[in-house]
């Protein structure tokens, strides 16, 4: 079964410096019908004005994956990590026993557009950690590029390891280009369109649309017009 979560029905928050769309309940947007899907708790679609951002705040017991679509993001945290990340980079934080971090648009004149994903960890009180990996854009072109998963990748150090039986992939498909994905029995999924248009098993999805996948062993993703699609795919327990 494919249940579509249309972009326009997402929660939202707008401030002078921030434009956010919440696929699931977050901050002041609370909808009991949209509290997450399986262990996927948050997909926030944030656009942050130049030089602005989220001041230091805390997290505990959450796997936080950030994927920048456009622009650059400056990260600073209580573990002493300080980085600027851009597109084609995976940033993953395990909050575990507790972290404090800030995220700012690193540019003085360009907005930054990003997806922030929260996955509930399988265990509490893990040692906090920060992971960051970059990849070539060709690695997501026409195929699935693993961003984060429960096991170290075969080519160690190319994707983030998270404390949950969940995998996050990204792919970019041109118009009419297709890709299939098979779920093991008893697995669930989520598809989130980062930009562009696509067909998912015949359903039309546009930018910001999501889809919950249950008891659907085979997915067929096809890039739509005019510019294809960039899409995240989740494989969840």
């Amino acid at each position: 079964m494919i249940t579509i979560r249309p972009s326009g029905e997402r929660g939202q928050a707008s401030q002078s410096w921030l434009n956010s769309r919440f696929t699931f309940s977050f901050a002041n947007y609370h909808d009991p019908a949209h509290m997450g899907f399986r262990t996927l708790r948050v997909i926030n679609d944030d656009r942050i004005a130049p030089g602005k951002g989220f001041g230091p705040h805390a997290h505990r017991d959450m796997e936080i994956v950030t994927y920048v679509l456009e622009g650059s993001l400056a990260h600073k945290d209580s573990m002493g990590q300080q980085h600027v990340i851009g597109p084609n980079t995976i940033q993953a934080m395990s909050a575990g026993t507790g972290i404090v971090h800030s995220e700012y648009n690193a540019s003085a004149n360009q907005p930054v557009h990003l997806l922030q994903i929260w996955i509930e960890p399988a265990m509490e009180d893990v040692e906090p950690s920060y992971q960051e990996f970059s990849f070539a854009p060709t690695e997501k072109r026409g195929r699935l590029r693993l961003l984060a998963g429960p096991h170290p990748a075969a080519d160690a150090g190319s994707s983030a390891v998270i404390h949950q039986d969940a995998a996050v992939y990204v792919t970019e498909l041109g118009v009419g280009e297709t890709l299939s994905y098979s779920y093991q029995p008893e697995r669930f999924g989520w598809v989130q369109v980062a930009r562009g248009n696509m067909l998912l098993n015949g359903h039309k999805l546009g930018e910001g649309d999501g889809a919950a996948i249950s008891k659907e062993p085979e997915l067929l993703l096809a890039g739509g017009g005019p510019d294809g699609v960039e899409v995240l795919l989740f494989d969840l327990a």
Partner: protein
Amino acid sequence: MQDVNVVVVFYSRTGSTERLALAAAVGAVQGRANIRLRRLPDPEGAAVDPEHGERMNREYVAPREADAAWAEAIVVGMPAGAETLSAQFEQYFDSLAALRDQGKFEGKIGASFSDGVGTSPLYAAMCRAGLITVPVLTDPDAVAAARLQGRRVANMIRALRPANAK
């Protein structure tokens, strides 16, 4: 475990006290506290540190009365070595007088952290404000001590709650 609320109020010019404030906040989060981090503004006319000053001005907001009302513990920190309370902290504690006079500080906890000497003016001010103070921890590893202090404060709130509820 019940959530508890902690506000960390600090002044840092070059980022070293900020580091300890972050550690205290992390310790409180380890103790399952909700935290707010607040930085006192640079004194008027003071030179703003080129590397950290502007960044901190951007990242932190100044404490407001509502933060102190929300918090069950106020954790304060200022650069080490000061013999007297800075004008900013004088002003900060003055701004809390109304809450204290309304009895809102009854059962509230105060604590500090430091990478050296100089917390006694802060403790004197916390006593005047009527906060229940948790002694400062000294340790060669100031970051670890600040983190532990944050955790202790969260635990203290929880320990005092039944008494405060009466």
